[in-house]
């Protein structure tokens, strides 16, 4: 039962409360670089004496369970969790709720056992957005040929969602899906090796590559460069600084910027309300859970200045180094 959240935590326990912030993996840099500091900052602002227990499960559902258990052993008052495995996280929800600790699903839903709150942008949507953006671009260019699809790790549930989203855009697009590949552990080297092979196989039939994140996108670009052929439009996801550089230099076609700041701060707000014993209501209801969804934004060379730099997500000084300075200048990024 999820109704058990309020009672036991009176306002008196709100100060000095602990809240767990459990992130899923290291394959994407965002959790350590963005989500965690943003969440901590917001929490600090809401409750200066509260403590955030941050853990990263490194793509291991069992480890995440261990981390949740140890957070509970430390007496946290709320758990914010981005599940490694949406299904397996049900155990964590159950255990936490049986100890009257509310669980906020962050970024990925936990369908099997409703959490107390769900805040996200939707991975499937991300997949379809980056693919759609690429497809639209190719159609505009009147490209003819096929597309390669570089998915994430075959053992990663989030990668499965992105893959599904990509298919939803690529399959009906009219471009032939030449081949697709699940990149073990999201490794850019693996993506590079695979794309190199496809280049020998399909030569100039390849008009675009949908890569599921910036790392594999970068690997794909390196494969084309190393083969000495022209780099077709290649997607990414996560808006890493390195990807921003590649977009500025014209090597990568797009990436996607998630409003991590908004999501992280929203979840800190929700957690704080739970800690205070309130029961926040969602904007919508998804998976029987009060929910709040945010929409990520596709970044291309056209809008990179305004999405990433004007909004303050990135600083020009970090990105416009060395050989990228020229590109920045062209785009007016300062």
């Amino acid at each position: 039962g999820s109704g058990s959240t309020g009672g036991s935590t009176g306002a008196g326990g709100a100060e000095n409360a602990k809240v767990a912030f459990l992130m899923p993996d290291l394959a994407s840099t965002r959790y350590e670089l963005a989500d965690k500091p943003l969440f901590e900052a917001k929490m600090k602002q809401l409750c200066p004496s509260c403590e955030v227990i941050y853990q990263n499960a490194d793509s291991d559902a069992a480890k995440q369970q261990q981390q949740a258990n140890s957070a509970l052993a430390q007496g946290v008052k709320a758990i914010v969790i981005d599940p490694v495995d949406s299904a397996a996280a049900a155990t964590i929800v159950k255990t936490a709720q049986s100890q009257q600790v509310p669980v906020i699903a962050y970024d990925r839903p936990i369908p099997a056992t409703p959490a107390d709150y769900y805040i996200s942008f939707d991975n499937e949507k991300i997949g379809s957005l980056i693919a759609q953006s690429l497809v639209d671009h190719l159609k505009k260019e009147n490209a003819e040929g096929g597309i390669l699809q570089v998915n994430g790790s075959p053992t990663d549930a989030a990668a499965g969602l992105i893959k599904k989203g990509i298919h939803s855009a690529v399959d009906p697009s009219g471009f032939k899906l030449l081949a697709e590949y699940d990149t073990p552990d999201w490794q850019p080297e693996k993506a590079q090796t695979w794309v190199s092979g496809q280049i020998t196989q399909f030569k100039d039939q390849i008009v675009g590559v949908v890569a599921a994140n910036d790392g594999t996108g970068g690997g794909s670009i390196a494969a084309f460069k190393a083969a000495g052929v022209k780099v077709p439009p290649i997607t990414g996801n996560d808006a890493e600084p390195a990807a921003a550089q590649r977009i500025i230099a014209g090597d990568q076609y797009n990436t996607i910027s998630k409003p991590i700041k908004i999501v992280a701060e929203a979840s800190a707000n929700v957690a704080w309300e739970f800690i205070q014993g309130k029961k926040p209501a969602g904007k919508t209801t998804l998976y029987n859970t009060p929910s709040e969804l945010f929409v990520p934004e596709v970044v291309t060379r056209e809008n990179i200045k305004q999405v990433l730099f004007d909004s303050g997500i990135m600083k020009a000084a970090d990105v416009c180094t060395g050989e990228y300075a020229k590109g920045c200048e062209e785009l007016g990024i300062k």
Partner: protein
Amino acid sequence: MSALKEGAAATDRQDERLRDREGLRGALADVVERARGGDLGVIPVVVGLVVIWTVLQILNPIFLSSANLVNLTLESAAVGIIALGIVCVLLVGQIDLSVGSVSGLSGAVLAVLFVSEGLPVWLAILASVVMGAVIGWVYGQLFNRFGVPSFVITLAGLLAFLGLQLYVLGTKGSINLPFDSGLVNFAQLDFVPAWLSYTFAVVAAVWLFASGFLHAQQRRAAGLSAKSVSTLALRSVALLVVLAFVVWYLGQTRGVGWMFVFFVALVLIMHYLLSRTKWGRAVYAVGGNVEAARRAGINVKAIYTSVFVLCSTFAAVGGILAAARLAAANQSSGSGDVNLNAIAAAVIGGTSLFGGRGTAFGALLGIIVIQSISSGLTLLNLDSSIRFVVTGAVLLLAVIVDSVSRRSRTSHGRA
């Protein structure tokens, strides 16, 4: 009671170069001597463990709390059982890199049969375990027939069974096990009632004393030296105190989990098999000198096969428990560091990678060291980068303590 003539030394005590060691004082002197000589069995690991626990407790006072230790015991079981199998293959000087994949596959098969196909749970468990045994048997055949190094066979197995796991889970990717099933309960919520735990502790202590006493009596009857009654009594009282304390302390929160009891039971069974049966002797002999074992008429191929079967079977059992504990089987079950953790647990527990040296208890102690580090650092709220560095450092520290206390071994001439 004794066939020993008054005043005459026991048959095994007659060499005049032996220093005299009788009774309780003798036993203590023996321990000290063995410590100096570096022949300490598992004591160094225990010392390493104590050091780590102290450090981690200082860093975060929750570490040694009852609740956290209960978690620790439950988290140790699945990988610990896998490490038990690894101990067996390491003992014969081979390796199994595929235990992670096999455990993942076994969890997946269990989930598919039990949840998707709706078979009774015991049948699903049986099927998974049998599958594990068959995998081990295949390894044994490949190893014996073709002489392929086990490193490569099991590396191929690692890949193949990971693929099979993905295939079995199919498009679902992840399958939940029902929370109200006995299996999930067993792994998550079933704890031994306090009275039964204390009974276990008492039974263990009494049994230790009784068996030691009977054995000593037999030895005296045969004219051999034997442990004195006081030594035996002291030993079992010590055991009783330790066990009772553990039970009491864990009982402060949830108590002793059945899954942990199951793990410990397996350790005891394996200990018996390895140390008190002909098969166990053969395992150590094959690991020490396979040609000598063959010349002694041991069916070396059968030993290899049995050990591979055991290892894969334990991996399958571990996989089932891991799935039960998570209440789900998914694509990443068994991947990640299961392999390394299981092998490291065996090695830290004193099992040699070159074969012929190690014990079943090593797996228990080793996995507790590893889970302690992991659990302790989980409590510390570190950046991942720092966490990795600290994990590595603490692991090294634990093993250096261990190795240094073993150190004198070589300088005393026991390589």
